[in-house]
């Protein structure tokens, strides 16, 4: 994962962009019409004639993700006059990026995205999860163009946490996401508006196939592909780590899946589907990325310059049947595990085991944790996923009833790899 500072200028499509390029007469004349004049809808605090200074000299922006959305975001910010932009991305460039990520050429395949995208002035190896609070506080605005829910949750929780006790430390988060012809753009003002976690239950849940279906009663081509990757790979290629970017690995899975499908008279296993299932590919094309990125950057521009009111706080976009947007205020959830001021409240069966409770935390649409560790509010460990010593020591609790360890109406403190903070969950037995 690389973080790259774009010192100044627009990354141009040429091979060797010239960052020292000077302004030319008229360069900002379009934007200045807006920034030099008051309008009937603009904020009371808007002061005509100062926009350029704000954009050029006072606003530091962090862009997370240099993929389809990230490229668009970088271009739009630079053209809108933002000068101080930093980019983080965690991917290298794949050929399949070339249909919508225009800052990359065929010759860039294999290079880390952030490096190429910002044309690389200063290289630092870093990760979203490695950054401390001060790093984020160094920016005025953070724009996310990611396809990873996990990274978004992490950043959202981090920013909410930083802002929690000090309004001075509120850093606006603008988040964009796309899937095929659909997408959304939203403005999150940590602790003030609803946050990413508040709307977690709006995400389409990934279809998970029950292991018994995969093993015993496959019906769909997807079941056969899952069989190849989840059951056959560990069995036949035990010592090898599966690399979903390696075409020979996909080919192997495809052949195994196809054989199984033929055995069961199931049709529809293809190489492309195999790749789609094992890599969990989200279909994408340039247009939707452009729409959502531009919507995000438009909000960034309006927020920073106060030249127009900004989005409060969610725009949903659908383009498969005609063209449709739904703009609304997503409500903050009082019991949001990240930004709510009330504990999350869970009603569970009085006989639920610790193991089943953990499964519940993973599956519940508004919680969706990955590897939760549980502690009582009197600091007794219920179950810890790591380190191994604690895992071993607390493992016997998995079989126990939760009610033996936590009394009705008491709190459980939950930590998870998904979030940088802990959640307080009040349990009630029924």
């Amino acid at each position, binding site marked *: 994962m690389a973080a790259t500072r774009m010192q100044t200028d627009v990354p141009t499509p040429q091979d060797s962009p010239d960052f020292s390029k000077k302004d030319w007469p008229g360069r*900002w004349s*379009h934007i200045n019409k807006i920034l030099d004049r*008051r*309008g009937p809808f603009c904020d009371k605090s808007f002061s005509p004639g100062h926009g350029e200074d704000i954009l050029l000299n006072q606003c530091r922006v962090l862009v997370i993700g240099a993929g389809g959305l990230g490229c668009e975001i970088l271009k739009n910010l630079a053209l809108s006059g933002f000068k101080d932009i930093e980019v983080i991305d965690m991917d290298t460039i794949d050929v399949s990026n070339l*249909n919508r990520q225009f800052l990359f050429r065929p010759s860039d395949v294999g290079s880390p995205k952030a490096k190429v995208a910002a044309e690389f002035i200063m290289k630092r190896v870093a990760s979203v999860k490695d950054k401390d609070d001060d790093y984020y506080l160094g920016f005025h605005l953070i724009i996310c163009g990611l396809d990873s829910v996990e990274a978004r949750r992490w950043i959202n929780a981090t920013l909410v946490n930083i802002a929690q006790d000090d309004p001075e430390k509120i850093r606006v988060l603008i988040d964009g996401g796309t899937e095929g012809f659909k997408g959304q753009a939203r403005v999150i003002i940590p602790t003030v508006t609803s946050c990413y976690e508040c709307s977690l239950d709006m995400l389409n849940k990934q279809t998970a196939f029950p292991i018994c279906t995969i093993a015993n009663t496959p019906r769909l081509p997807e079941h056969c592909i899952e069989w190849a990757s989840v059951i056959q790979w560990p069995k036949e290629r035990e010592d090898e780590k599966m690399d979903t970017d390696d075409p020979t690995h996909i080919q192997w899975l495809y052949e195994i899946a196809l054989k199984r499908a033929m055995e*069961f008279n199931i049709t529809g296993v293809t190489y*492309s589907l195999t790749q789609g299932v094992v890599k969990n590919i989200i279909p994408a094309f340039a247009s*939707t990325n452009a729409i959502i990125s531009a919507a995000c950057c438009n909000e960034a521009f309006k927020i920073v310059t106060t030249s*127009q009111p900004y989005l409060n706080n969610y725009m949903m976009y659908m383009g498969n049947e005609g063209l449709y947007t739904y703009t609304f205020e997503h409500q903050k959830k009082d019991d949001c595990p990240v930004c709510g001021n009330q504990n999350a409240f869970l009603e569970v069966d009085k006989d639920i085991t610790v193991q089943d409770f953990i499964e519940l935390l993973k599956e519940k649409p508004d919680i969706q944790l990955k590897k939760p560790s549980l502690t009582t509010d009197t600091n007794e460990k219920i179950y810890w996923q790591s380190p191994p010593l604690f895992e071993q020591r607390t493992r016997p609790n998995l079989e126990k009833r939760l009610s033996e360890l936590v009394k009705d109406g008491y709190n459980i403190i939950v930590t998870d790899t998904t979030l940088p903070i802990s959640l307080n969950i009040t349990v009630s037995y029924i």
Partner: protein
Amino acid sequence: MNIDKKTQKYDRQLRLWQVSGQEALENSRVCLINGTATGCEILKDLVLPGIGSFTVVDGKEVDGADAGISFFLDGDRIGTNRALAVTELLQELNEDVRGDYLAEDPISLIENRIDYFLQFTIVIAVGVPEKPLLKLSEALWDSKIPLFIVRTTGFVGYFRVTLPEHTVVETHPESIVDLRLDIPFPALEQYVKTFDFDSMDNMDHGHIPYVVILLKYLDQWKKDHDGKLPSTSAEKKQFKQLIESGRRNTDEENFNEALANAWRVFTPTKVTSQVQEIFNDSACESITANSSNFWIITRAIRDFVTNEGQGLLPLAGTVPDMKADTSTYVTLQTIYRQKAKTDIATVRSHVDKILSSIGRTSDFIHDDEIVSFCKHAAFIQVIRYRSLKEEYISDPKKSDIDRWLQDPQDNIVHYILIRAIDKFYETHNRYPDAATFFFEGDTEEVNEEAKSEFELLKTYVNILLSDLQITNPPDHLDDYIHEICRAGGSELPNMASLLGGLVSQEVIKIVTRQYIPINNTSIFDGIKSTSSTYIL
């Protein structure tokens, strides 16, 4: 490896429009009139997914302002022809796309050599004034070439599609489920009879597909109710109770599925009014040698419905996933597919009959096209656009516009303003451009010139409103007059890019004949971050 470079490159979008859509895209020739920032953003989003070729027509010399807002220009290009400059940089995006340019003034080209534009698959006109636009739109209309009219100014984006007719088979509905539970076909009925629920062990009983559960209990219901389906809400409830009574334990997922899908039994399978309307269309009625494949196959399907189909469309033949063991599920799937195949063969014979009646051989329409058509028959779409001449001159949507305009939140106000600044431009050869809105404390900045700009534009707004016979313009109109004077015909990079995405998406839908395009005008308001679509 069995995957070629191109399939790899376009993988993410092939999942949306498949090889057939990609081929259509690769065969398209796109013309862009005016290489503005918005125009280039549209082309960027078409060049990346791989159109066949593009041509930029633009006679303008690049100035500092152009270079400042376009990603496809830079300071070094100032003074060169804009078509040439942007073509070079757009071309770089995708080596599989051919880029071309014509360094000529598009307006004089429209006036003197209108036929030039007839060589393209699609024409995108950005910022062309009203008069030449009307001429261009008529010429393209007569040749059935789609025209996209695009405008951005300040925080507002507008685009309009004109095309006599657009038909879509692959509309990509969320799901195609056509199970015929209310009227099972013989092979399906036969299959259900082979199940004896009582003699099954718990394992098998828990794996009976819900289609079979529903049909079994429906059969029983019909026996007890003179062959009638459950229709009142009390009966529907009773029917669900009947299913519930067959459940052996609460864990039986297949029974949960049966209950969740019981509504499919109560919903009669029929030709929807939307499809019926297409069947009743005169283009379906009178097939000639000029009829498109769409209308020939639609007519064949209509003939199928009135004859062999007994009032129903050909079966789609897809079965959703459901709890079942492998062989039962596959058998059920085969039964539906087999019936679908038979229906397709019957439709094929109707197609052949129609083809021969217009003096064509069967190979004029490929089997694949009929297969896809039968699968999507319930979702086909026909859009007849209104022409620009109708909108502007012969039949403006006066009362609709009046009604929409009264709502202060409605985006139609931007349409009025865009039309008004076009009228302004026609006389003054420039767009309104001044600071006209002030606070009390700003008084020293107010100047008379600025005030008069507002009044001047307002006269054009009023001319347009009176043309549209709108007698009570709403108060909020003034705010938008101020705002558009402020924008001064400027293009903002974000709005250019946003419109680029919207327009390119609609171009892709029209070119691939997949998904449902807008009809006919779309407006995006970047102040409120809302959009609206209007038939104008």
